């Protein structure tokens, strides 16, 4: 068994603006770490420094924080956005996050941003292109980054491998980590008719740094990754399966739209704890029985 590259920080949450005050006053006991969206705290392209940054500094004093970006645009044919990376590095230097993550996707091309996470072609040529790019990004940032699988609604005809084969090879070639979004796996499994367990089983576990749990919407028979609903039962089952079969990883609830009040959101965090504690108890029983 290979040594895990990332520490397990426990169960956390994506900290969004409606709940920032909650965290500034006192970190809820159910939370062991938090994730923030990098772009909300980075200096703007115009140089404007957002006031939210000082809130992040204060939160960081109280708990471990991961930076999660949506605009690194790794999969784009455009070269690396040096200005973006510079601003991200400045933020990382001030905050000292537990890690930095972004998505396996492209968000724009030709200097224009679509502000969406569009899948990359799963080809050998792209594997080489992306691994070189990630290596350069990690070199610049001075740390290993985590790459998240996205939900997708289409597949390119030139695909030479499955998404999970691509992720395995890419992360090994680029020596980066994986942010495993279980909801995204589930959404794509329905939209492209595959078994989500096949995906989970093939992931190089030593590279998994973090797990996202989120909700989605159902539209005309397909699923859309809206992050505006509670985590669905199928995704909870996949999380439990992951904990039982693959081990425990830093995990969190991600909610970006329709954000409920803290008490409501915390119910999902408590459920994640409950699943984890349940799986640990099962293990303990098995160990006791085997002695």
């Amino acid at each position, binding site marked *: 068994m290979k040594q895990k590259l990332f520490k397990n920080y426990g169960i956390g949450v994506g900290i969004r603006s409606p709940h920032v005050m909650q965290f500034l006053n006192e970190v809820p006991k159910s939370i062991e770490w938090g994730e923030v969206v990098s772009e909300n705290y980075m200096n*703007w392209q115009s140089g404007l420094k957002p006031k939210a940054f000082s809130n992040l500094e204060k939160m960081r004093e109280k708990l471990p924080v991961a930076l999660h970006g949506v605009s690194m645009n790794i999969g784009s*044919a455009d070269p690396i956005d040096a200005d973006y990376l510079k601003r991200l590095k400045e933020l990382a230097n001030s905050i000292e996050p537990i890690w930095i993550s972004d998505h396996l996707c492209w968000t724009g091309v030709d200097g*224009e941003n679509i502000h969406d996470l569009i899948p990359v*072609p799963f080809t050998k040529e792209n594997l080489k292109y992306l691994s070189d790019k990630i290596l350069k990004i990690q070199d610049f940032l001075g740390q290993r980054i985590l790459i998240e699988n996205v939900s997708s609604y289409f597949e390119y005809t030139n695909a030479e491998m499955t998404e999970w084969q691509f992720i395995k090879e890419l992360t090994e070639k680029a020596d980066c980590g994986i942010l495993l979004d279980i909801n995204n796996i589930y959404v794509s499994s329905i939209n492209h008719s595959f078994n989500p367990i096949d995906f989970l089983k093939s992931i190089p576990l030593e590279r998994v740094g973090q797990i996202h749990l989120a909700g989605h919407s159902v539209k005309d028979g397909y699923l859309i990754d809206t992050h505006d609903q509670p985590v669905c039962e199928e995704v909870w089952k996949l999380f439990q399966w992951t904990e039982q079969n693959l081990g425990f990883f830093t995990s969190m609830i991600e909610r970006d739209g329709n954000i409920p009040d803290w008490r409501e959101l915390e119910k999902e965090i408590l459920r994640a704890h409950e699943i984890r504690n349940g799986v640990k108890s099962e293990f303990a029983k098995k160990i006791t029985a085997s002695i």
Partner: protein
Amino acid sequence: MNSLKKLQLQFKEAITKNFEPEFLNSLPLRETAQFSKIQRLKVYQNAYFLRIEESLEEDFPETFELIKKTKGDLRSQLRKFLKENPSKFNNLGEYSQIFPLFFDVKNERDLYESANFEWKKCITFTAHHKKAIDIATLSQYSEEEILTLKMELHPAVQLATKGDHLYLLYRADSEVTTDKIDLNSYKIIDMILEGLNISKIVERISSPEELFRIFAMLSSRGLIVGIQK
């Protein structure tokens, strides 16, 4: 042009502006009996438009109302804006700065003023906090030195015009505050924001008392955050 760039340019077009079925069906996508290529692309097309519409609506609620009132069709105006001004920003919040300019170039004064005013409010809301200084510290400088000083205002301070009125925008207790001000005050604050020193400002105004009145007003609101030589 490499094949990846060619592919991505095609998809960018399909998501942002070319919704012709013939073009969408020509894209190299897998199709299933369950969902056609067009249905699959529509998810991205809708998301692109809705995400940006929501972000703009959050920043420009009054301008949205004004567009509905004066133009009737908000959606077609927004689509036009998106087609003419694709985002080149990493952050949707920052992309909003282009919205007022869209009306400016079309010479739509009311919409421009409304959007520009709301954009300034966004900056006032977003800018980081700096602690105010005590204006009494000026007394440590000689008269000669005072003339060479530049005042640094809080990063949230903005000036704006709307209708016949001039405004000073700032944050008070974390809330965006908009105070109507007179033309002299507007000009003087503008000169401070431009980075002119006290000597240069005095040269351009009719009475030094005006300047002291403005300093006192800015200081009482905690908006002077630095003095530079």
